[in-house]
């Protein structure tokens, strides 16, 4: 935030309260705005934001050497990205995260209040969220938190959370097996091709190499080695297909981005 300056002491709190009040006023005003005008406002904001990035991309640049000696190319709009746009996006994300947390607590406290089946899961979730929030804030708020708090944070984060996360991740190994079993059952021509390709790649990347290692590494006979087949499937068949899909997806994103930028997109963002 060096471009805008950083408020200190009392002024920091004045700025925080001022911004909070202004935000509440803006949200209230937006809520009361009729949908037709709100849509126009949304389209305008989208266009201005998109125009900023388009101009930043197309306007001529010059070389700028930063304090640490790094050379970058910039035009007069580039410095606004780290000093204004990124912090603005972060503040908006923080606001919206509060909304997500509110949703989570509303749904689960409702489950508990109505004693819905499995409400004890909701109790566990609310307790975990509150405990983690308090311990996490306490640990990071001060430079030297009490040893007990630091240890509890370590136990909750490293001891519980990370292990549960890893346990979830490890489930994928079993799911891959069951999905592969269903996918590789030879029921059609496509299924047979899929099975044959998978077998070649698997053998070429594992013990299959041993079976053909007696063949020469160069010349015509090298084409019979399983790793040659495997790299052919990966490099000649699979990679171009993936590139083609990537180009198609990129074009789709470009078209959609253009429609949103120009405000001609309907549907989820701008309604009918």
């Amino acid at each position, binding site marked *: 935030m060096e471009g805008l300056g950083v408020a200190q002491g009392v002024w920091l709190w004045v700025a925080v309260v001022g911004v909070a009040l202004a935000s509440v006023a803006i949200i209230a005003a937006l809520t009361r705005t009729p949908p037709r005008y709100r849509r126009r406002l949304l389209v305008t904001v989208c266009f201005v934001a998109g125009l900023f990035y388009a101009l930043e991309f197309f306007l001529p640049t010059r070389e700028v050497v930063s304090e640490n000696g790094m050379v970058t190319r910039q035009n007069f709009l580039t410095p606004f990205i780290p000093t204004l746009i990124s912090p603005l996006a972060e503040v908006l994300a923080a606001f919206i995260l509060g*909304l997500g947390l509110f949703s989570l607590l509303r749904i689960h406290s409702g489950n508990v209040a109505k004693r819905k089946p499995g409400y004890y899961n909701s109790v566990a979730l609310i307790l975990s969220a509150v405990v983690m929030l308090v311990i996490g804030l306490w640990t990071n708020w001060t430079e030297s938190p009490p040893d007990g708090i630091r240890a509890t944070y370590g136990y909750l984060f490293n001891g519980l959370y990370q292990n549960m996360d890893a346990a979830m991740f490890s489930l994928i190994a079993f799911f891959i097996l069951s999905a592969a079993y269903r996918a590789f059952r030879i029921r059609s021509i496509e299924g047979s091709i899929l099975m044959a390709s998978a077998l070649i790649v698997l053998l070429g990347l594992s013990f299959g190499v041993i079976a053909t290692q007696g063949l020469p590494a160069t010349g015509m006979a090298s084409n019979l080695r399983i790793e040659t087949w495997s790299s052919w499937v990966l490099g000649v068949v699979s990679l171009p297909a993936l590139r083609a899909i990537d180009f198609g997806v990129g*074009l789709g994103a470009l078209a959609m981005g253009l429609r949103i930028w120009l405000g001609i997109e309907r549907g989820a963002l701008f309604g009918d």
Partner: protein
Amino acid sequence: MLHADENWFVAVFMGLLVGLILWRIISAMHGRLPFIRRIPGLNAIDEAVGRATEMGRPILMVPGLSGLDIVGIQALNIFRHITRTAARFSTPIRLCVSDAALYAVGQEVIQEAYRSEGRPEGYDPDTVQFISGEQFAFAAGVSGIIHRQKVAATFLMGAFFAESLIFAETANTVGAIQVAGTTLTTQTPFFVAACDYVIIGDEFYAASAYLSREPVPTGSLAGQDMGKILFVVCIIIGCISFSITGPQYPADAPLFYKMFGSGGWEELLRALRGLVG
């Protein structure tokens, strides 16, 4: 940050693609609507909603780890259509998101979908749920919902990573019909292996045009196809000329190398990937 004067090839080619897309949008707005081929994955939406209605069980929609970006918005476009179909038959729906910004927009979209079908009372704010911003906590939460509520149909549309197979296989265990689509080529094979119908690559973006048949998305789709034709022409010219001349060509003709060799295309692909996020 990349700038036009650092990479003229990307800038010129992007400009050309934008021109093609806009031209086809304007043509479509003047009544020249192109033909759209059948996309089985999108046709299956009505089948899946019908099955859920018959079984009286909910439909689950998951945009993966998408945020409020192009992929997330397109996922919501598809979910909006599904919700409108479900609202007609009073079929319960669930939308689970991992991004708080998408949650806020999702609530608005689902509510509006019920309103547009003349059933505003059918909207329940609890149908749109923010689960968690953490990948595997989100996966665990959604899997729990699939199991507890015995969903009849799942729509997995958006940006998925390692959690894709957890969703698809969990839904398979409860016998749900599954339609999936992602823009990430790394996860498409998992969906192909585990789901009933898969929307591959740019079919994900074709959904708006396919489902609504409105001039703007339909024209935009035709523009994208013209862009693809341009790519194919460049690839064919590049293949033939480099097969004749050999790899020494780039040094003699840098412009030719950028247009038809790999020189500019890697950068263009990187720029296009940047749009997807």
